[in-house]
């Protein structure tokens, strides 16, 4: 029989056979490769009951404009049944700059919320019970400083930090690889990350100090295999740094979390989550021999693929997001963000973000996919793909090991180049219509009506500048300068910097001032340009 194409490939370019059967699983063992959910190697999930025990956390990433604007959006999402918060910071904050910095002009509050000071952080969480919600903060370069602000807010409200639950993204390696928001060279950044890990391992049993992220790697154009390989290898790099700093692996590894993208290829994505759990468990077991089984378990957040959304016929994005969210659930993610249909054009409106949240709620409560654990486990195709993804990721591990680790590989531009090549390949396939994108290269409609989008005005920048000027004139500058000096002295040595950062934010030092002080000690970074 004729087939539509000579070759069928997954979204990532893996060749897919017409049919999968027992022959494709030779050597595969139902006990050692699949196992039971909640047991090594965790292919079927990290918990024995999965969604029968507890549904995933519905956590929509949100942030725009001022702290008050974002606080209102948080309250709106919580009122509509969201179960966790996730903060998006604006570009200046991500780069460790104050809202009134010259380099921040035109950027304040646009793709996230502007937080330059402890006062901003207090207004951001006004009226939100920090001991009852969990908060995820997407912040990397200056993560330790924003974290110090969050801890200081809790302290002012009389909430012990041990009761705070949440996640700090705090993953600088994927910044160098993909998202490209860094402050310092890799070594001091790794030190700051390990300082937060050490601090949490002592004082904050409910906090995830790093969310090792493949999301941005995928958005930058990688394949599913590259996302899996680079993310897990980044994770091993952090574990290695923490262990070398003297921490016991079981003191922190159970609190590591992961963050994956969910793209359009349903089965490849499901297999990716399963392969990630198995690969992590096996590598952790083999490299570090932890005693606590939780040190082997890969828990993850997932977000549907922003790069899969199209500006043309934006309503179609709701359908794409639904399929991707289904993959995350069938893959066994612990929490999920669903993108809104208007995100190719701007941050989402209230209505579109509500629809995205409702998409998750329909999956959770109406689709009945939550009734059983790992419903696709044992399927020839899914198990073959899971094997294939694990093998291909291991091949990248070998290459990265040979290069001397991820930091060296980044300095040589290796992951950056691999991602760029994958992105070029994909773009070529779309342009040659080897991949059909509905509404873009097929089924195109002329003259589409515009959809409503969220606007951020310049007034946020002005009001932030004014409140920072007020803050600088009101605070005890002498005390503030003293905390920065103590921070710089500690940074030049090898003490844990968290207590110094907490002192500095409590003395009203701003984000930009703290980062500038640290740059004097740590220096800055310029990337190798890969084109």
């Amino acid at each position: 029989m004729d087939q539509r194409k000579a070759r069928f490939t997954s979204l990532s370019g893996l060749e897919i056979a017409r049919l999968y059967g027992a022959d494709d699983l030779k050597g595969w063992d139902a006990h050692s490769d699949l196992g039971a959910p909640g047991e090594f190697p965790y292919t079927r999930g990290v918990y024995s009951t999965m969604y029968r025990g507890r549904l995933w956390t519905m956590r929509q990433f949100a942030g725009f404009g001022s702290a008050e604007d974002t606080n209102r959006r948080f309250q709106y999402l919580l009122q509509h049944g969201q179960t966790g918060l996730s903060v998006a910071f604006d570009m200046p904050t991500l780069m460790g700059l104050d809202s009134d910095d010259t380099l921040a002009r035109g950027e304040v509050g646009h793709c996230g919320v502007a937080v330059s000071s402890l006062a901003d952080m207090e207004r951001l969480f006004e009226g939100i019970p920090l001991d009852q919600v969990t908060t995820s903060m997407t912040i990397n370069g200056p993560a330790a400083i924003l974290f110090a602000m969050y801890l200081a807010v809790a302290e002012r409200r009389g909430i012990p930090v041990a009761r705070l639950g949440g996640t700090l993204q705090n993953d600088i390696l994927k910044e160098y690889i993909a998202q490209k928001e860094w402050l310092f060279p890799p070594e001091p950044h790794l030190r700051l990350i390990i300082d937060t890990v050490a601090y949490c391992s002592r004082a904050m049993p409910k906090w995830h100090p790093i969310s090792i992220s493949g999301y941005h790697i995928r958005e930058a154009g990688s394949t599913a295999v590259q996302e899996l390989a680079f993310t897990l290898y980044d994770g091993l790099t952090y574990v290695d740094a923490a262990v070398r700093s003297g921490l016991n692996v079981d003191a922190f590894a159970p609190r590591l979390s992961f963050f994956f993208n969910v793209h359009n290829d349903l089965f490849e994505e499901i297999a990716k989550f399963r392969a990630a759990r198995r690969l992590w468990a096996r590598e952790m077991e083999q490299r570090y021999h932890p005693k606590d089984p939780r040190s082997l378990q890969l828990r993850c957040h997932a977000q549907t693929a922003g790069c899969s959304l199209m500006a043309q016929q934006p309503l179609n994005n709701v359908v794409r997001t639904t399929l991707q969210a289904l993959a995350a659930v069938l893959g066994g993610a612990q929490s999920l963000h669903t993108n809104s249909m208007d995100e190719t054009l701007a941050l989402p409106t209230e209505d579109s973000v509500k629809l995205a949240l409702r998409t998750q709620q329909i999956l959770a409560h109406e689709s009945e996919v939550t009734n059983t654990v790992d419903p696709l486990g044992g399927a020839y195709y899914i198990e073959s793909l899971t094997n294939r993804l694990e093998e291909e990721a291991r091949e990248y591990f070998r290459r990265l090991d040979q290069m001397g680790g991820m930091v060296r590989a980044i300095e040589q531009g290796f992951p950056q180049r691999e991602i760029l090549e994958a992105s070029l390949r994909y773009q070529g396939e779309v342009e040659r219509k080897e991949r059909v994108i509905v509404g873009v290269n097929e089924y195109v409609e002329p003259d589409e009506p515009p959809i409503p989008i969220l606007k951020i005005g310049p007034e946020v920048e002005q009001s932030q500048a004014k409140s920072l000027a007020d803050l600088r004139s009101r605070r005890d500058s002498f005390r503030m300068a003293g905390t920065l000096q103590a921070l710089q002295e500690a940074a030049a040595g090898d003490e844990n910097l968290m207590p110094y950062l907490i002192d500095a934010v409590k003395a009203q030092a701003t984000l930009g001032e703290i980062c500038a002080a640290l740059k004097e000690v740590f220096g800055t970074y310029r990337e190798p340009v890969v084109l």
Partner: protein
Amino acid sequence: MRAATRTKPLRILIGKVGLDGHDRGVKLVARALRDAGIEVVYTGLHQTPEQVVATAIQEDVQAIGLSLLSGAHNYLFPRVIELLKEQGADEIAVFGGGIIPDEDLPRLKAAGVRALFPPGSSMHEIVAFAKGLKPS
């Protein structure tokens, strides 16, 4: 200087201005322009408007193509054009792309941006526009 270089191939600066680190799109555009026979000067990330304009003049380009996905386009595009005027280099055409909502297009065009490629634009359109630019 510029007038005497008629046989030179078209030369375009492609850059990221502002704090935005999203460079997937800009690299695809840079590669596509290069494949189309255009000389491309790629600035890398996190450039200030001042740096972009200085590089453009120094590299003697005919156009500057900027990518912005951070929402800062309403400030940064006009700022680059203003600096080009101040330096007497406003014969350098400015174009761009990224997350730019339709309703911002008229204002940016009025500020002097020659062409804009918002989400949904094809690589073909961008290359066709660039090839239509005249070498100096």
